[in-house]
C-alpha cells in the first residue's frame, strides 16, 4: 500500500503557509486600494476641521491630543506624581519637541 512520507506532509504544510503569505501580500494591496476612499475622507476631514491628533485614547487630555499636550502634562497632579493612565505608557514625547522647545525658550 502506498504510504505518504512525513516529509511530504511537512512540505505541503510549508507550501500552504507560503501560499497564505502570498495571499497576505495580495490582501494588503487590495485592502489599501479598497480603503483609499476612507483614508482620503479621513485626511480631508482632518484638513477641514484642522485636526491635529488621532482619536486613539480618550482617557486623559494628554493621551487624547498627545501632540498638543504640555511637556509637563503627565505630571500635572504633582511634580513627582507617577503616570497613572495605562495609555500613557504607549505615548512618549517626541525628541524633536523637546529640542525645539529648548531652542526657542
Amino acid at each position, binding site marked *: 500500500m502506498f504510504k505518504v512520507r512525513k516529509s511530504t506532509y511537512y512540505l505541503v504544510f510549508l507550501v500552504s503557509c507560503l501560499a497564505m*503569505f502570498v495571499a497576505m501580500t495580495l490582501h494588503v494591496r487590495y485592502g489599501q486600494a479598497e480603503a483609499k476612499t476612507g483614508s482620503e475622507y479621513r485626511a480631508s476631514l*482632518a484638513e*477641514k476641521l484642522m*485636526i491635529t491628533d488621532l*482619536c*486613539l485614547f480618550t482617557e486623559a487630555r494628554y493621551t487624547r491630543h498627545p501632540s*498638543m499636550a504640555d511637556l509637563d502634562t503627565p505630571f500635572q497632579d504633582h511634580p513627582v506624581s507617577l503616570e497613572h493612565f495605562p495609555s500613557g505608557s*504607549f505615548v512618549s*514625547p517626541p525628541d524633536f519637541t523637546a529640542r525645539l522647545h529648548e531652542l526657542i*525658550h
Partner: protein
Amino acid sequence: MSSFINRHRNIIDFALSSLLRRKIKNISLLGVYTLIIFVLASLIFFVHALRREAALILKNAPDMVVQRLMAGRHELIPVDYGQKISSIRGVQDVVPRLWGYYFDPAIGSNYTVMVPRDNMVQPDNIIIGTGVARVRKASVRDLIAFQAYDKTPLLLMIQQILPYESELVAADLILMSEQDFQSMFNLPKGYATDLAVSVANPRELVTVATKIAEQFPDTRPILKSEILRTYDSVFDWRGGMMIVIMSAAILSFIIFAWDKATGLSAEERKEIGILKSIGWETSDVLFLKFWEGIVISLSAFLCGVLLAYGHVFFFSATIFEHALKGWSILYPQFRLVPAIDAFQLTVLFALSVLPYTVATIVPAWLAASADPDAAMRS
C-alpha cells in the same frame, strides 16, 4: 540534484519521526513559540498600520499650532496675537481654533468639542462622531442634553453623525456652532483655544516659529513635523507596556535557545551515538538537528505571523483592546488598513528562527564529534 533532495527528504522524515517520538514536549514547545511570535508580529502589524494611517491622515494638519502657556499649562490665547502673527513675513493665514473637552457625567466619558471653521453646524445643532452616537445610543434629530458652565441644561439636536470611516479621527468629536460653544464654556471674548498658522513656504516654518516665540514669549509653536513625529513615537519600544512585552518575548527566546544550547538529553546523545555507529556521518547528524530546529522554529514563525495578520486586520486586534482602552469609556472601533513592514518581519525572522536553529545544531555537533561508543554509553 535528485540525490541531494532525496537525502534531505530522508533526513526530514527521520527528523519528523524523532520529533513525534517526544510529541507532548515538542507540541507544547511549538505552541509557546507560536504564541510569542504571534504577540510580537501582532504588535509589529498594529503599530506599523497605525503609524501609516497617522501619516496619511495628518499630512494635511495645520502647518503650525500656536499655544499660549501660563504657569507651564496650556492657556487661552488672545485672538489679537493672531492678527500680529499674520503680519510676520511668510505667514499665509492665521485661524483661531475653538475647541475643548466636555465630561459627560451621564456616561462618564470625555468628548472633544470643536467649532468648525465654516458654518457647517447650525446653532442649536451638533454633528457627532460615531463613538459619541454609540455611547449615547443617539441617532440623527435626537436631542442631547449637555450641562453648560453654570450647570444650566443645554439641549442640542443631532444634525448629522459622521460616517464610520471617520472613527479614527473623530469618534469622540462633537462639532457645534460658535454661539453654542460660548453658551457651553463661557470663553472670555476675544480669546481662542489656540491658533492654526499656515506658512506659504514650508522651509520657513522654523524661522516663523522662532519669530513667533521671540515676539510672544508666552507662546509655544508646535510644527506639523512635530505632530507627525508624535505618532512616530507612539508605541515606541521604549514605552512602558511595549518594553514589558518585548522583554518577555526576548526572555522566552533566550530560555528556548538556552535549553537547546546547554546540551542534549541522554536519550538524544544515545540516538546520535546509534546513528553514527550504523554509518551516519557527522554532517548527516548536523542536518538532522538542523531540520529539527527548522521544523519547530519555521513552523512557529509562519503560523505566528499568519495568525497575527488575521488578529490585527480581521479581528481589529481584540487581544490588545483592553490594554489600549485603559480607563476610557469611549473607545474608537476602527479596522486598520492592512500594511506590512517587510524589514521588521525580516528582523523578527532573524531573531526567532536563526538563534533557535543554531542553538539546536551546536550541542549536536559536540555530541556527533565524540566517539559513538562513548555517546551510547553516556
